[in-house]
């Protein structure tokens, strides 16, 4: 399993803790929503980076108040066909303004990486050969986007009218 963050292949410096695993003294950990809700204070008291992993049927609303204290939010794709995390990613970024790492985990395949990036994911747990190559191919496949998402890309509508305005003003 490889981790890509902000377009680079990086080492995973966080550990996913099982619900019944003891909390380590140090190190960045990621816990389930259930554990976060139960042990929030203890986790924050560690003063170490902490992340929460949401299942596809768990709502970002449940952690909205704490987002500033989370370094990392992981959104699970139990099956690549389960598209709920795309909406949850956008809600985290665009409604709640989450600035930390938003990581796609689970059944994360090359063919969905472009859409994931568009909806706000900036980190991806990918398996298979040549993950960085796969990732780069996926990101480079499209250069026109119709819909505004939080990714800051200029939509075709914007471009059309901006360019028309520039031509007019010349």
């Amino acid at each position: 399993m490889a981790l890509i963050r902000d377009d680079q292949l990086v080492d995973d410096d966080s550990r996913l803790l099982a619900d019944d695993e003891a909390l380590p003294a140090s190190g960045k950990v990621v816990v389930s929503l259930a554990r976060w809700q139960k042990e929030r204070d203890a986790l924050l008291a560690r003063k170490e980076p902490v992340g929460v992993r949401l299942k596809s049927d768990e709502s970002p609303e449940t952690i909205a108040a704490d987002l500033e204290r989370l370094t990392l939010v992981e959104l699970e794709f139990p099956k690549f066909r389960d598209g709920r995390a795309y909406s949850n990613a956008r809600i985290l970024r665009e409604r709640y303004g989450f600035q930390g790492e938003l990581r796609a985990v689970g059944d994360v395949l090359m063919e969905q990486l472009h859409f994931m990036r568009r909806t706000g994911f900036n980190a991806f747990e990918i398996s298979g050969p040549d993950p960085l190559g796969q990732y780069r191919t996926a990101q480079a496949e499209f250069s026109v986007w119709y819909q505004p998402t939080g990714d800051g890309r200029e939509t075709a509508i914007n471009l059309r009218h901006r360019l028309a305005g520039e031509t007019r003003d010349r």
Partner: protein
Amino acid sequence: MYRYDEFDRKLVVERANQFARQVKRRLSGELNEDQFRPLRLMNGLYLQLHAYMLRVNVPYGTLSSKQLRCFAHIARRYDRGYGHFTTRQNIQYNWIKLEETPALLRELADVEVTGIQSSGNCVRNITSDQYAGSAKDELADPRKYCELLRQYSVLHPEFSYLPRKFKIAVTGSPTDRAAVAVHDIGLRMHRNKQGEIGFEVLVGGGLGRTPWIAHTIRDWIEPEHILSYVEAILRIYNLHGRRDNIHKARIKIIVNQMGIDKYRELVEAEWQRIKDSALKVPAEEIERIDRYFAPPAYAKLEDATALLDGQRKASREFDRWLKANTVGHKVPGYAIVNLTLKALGKPPGDIDADTMDRVADLADRYSFGEIRISHRQNLVFVDVRQDQLHELWQKLDALGLATPNLDAITDIICCPGLDYCALANARSIPVAMDIRKRFVDVDELADIGELKINISGCMNACGHHHVGHIGILGVDKRNEEFFQLTLGGSSDQNASLGDRLGPGLPQSEVPDAIAAIVERYKSVRNDGERFLDTYRRVGIEPFREAVYGKDSEKAVA
């Protein structure tokens, strides 16, 4: 009609290239079938009984002659010389090879046509009124809003893995020819008190296993807010739609489970958050798209009824065809002409490559080079000069495209069924062809009048049987094909779902049953009353008895 600009063109080329790469990965085994299936479906490619089937989008049913010629070429080069028009204004090819699909899609991209999202759990073809732009009763051409929605929904990163498929239809007329009440989202254009154009938004309509008439989620939305409102609806659906059972995954299920009031509450809350975002459509964009739908260069003509009257008196056949297949136009001196693809001995909605080319030529000569596809799997020329109708009719007649049966008993909607489709329980096409054979006399057709038969080979209802005046549904009973009839469905602005007539009939008994229903109708109808209205007046019993006899316990079994 809309023409791609550099951005539209680039996107479809990039998409075709992506699919070429995905096909390579599939053929080499890097992708298994489970991983590849949604990808090919999102390009319109199904694996059916005999081969791959490709569904090509015809956005809101509007086609140029150049595109139709390309369809003919595709049929010859990549298929077996014919195509099939569908109830969602698309075209299907039945004999496609996976390894040739990338080249095929590139050829289509050259004429600004794609299979993008014609299948898959995403937003499908945006469909509309086949008479858009020319209909007398139209408030405004709905197609500019369709084009806006098309671009918005294509390769939408958030909504490409919905719980299930998603279908949107738009009507610009109070007479709903787009069946908006049986779509996941329906947009019904109307004017507010200030005379401005806007839409009633309907949600949760659909056919299939659990048919439902849509609810109104909002009485009024301004055009500039269409995209944000649709986004709100889609987001709530994406998050809350069921994913545990594919037969319970459409938006109509969740809307009915939650109740429309709760669903509306969630959508409105979401919409408030996003309505003033970048999704608000700038007036310049609506205007830009609108320019593509500017009316063609109509000649300044007088109404030609007097000329037509003379021609009608001189030819009974022309008179019949004019009455049956043509419709009034908003511009004086023009008419809308329907070409029914329901010839004797041919599967409904099918058309061969040579005929496609001839139709393209006629479109150029008589209708500003444009063709429309209707929900009844027919073609339309929407801008024909009245003084050219007689000439056009003769040419259509020579091609077998002038059967005067629009909306008549032989203008049957029919899905491909078990002759082609992996989902089907029964063969629908032979049933349609048997009924077609039964009613050849054109005077009888005219006497029966408007009677829409819709045939589906299975519960997925691609033949829209629930909303047929007579619906026919194929079922499998112990490896034998049986057909259940329903009566009284309608897809227009007074939409209704058909009522079950009785137990399934074997294929051989269906034409007799139809004939019995027709006879009963004729014997109880009031003067000039069409079948649907007679049914709504007298109820199902007279027809049940006509088909199943006085042994009504048998019928209600």
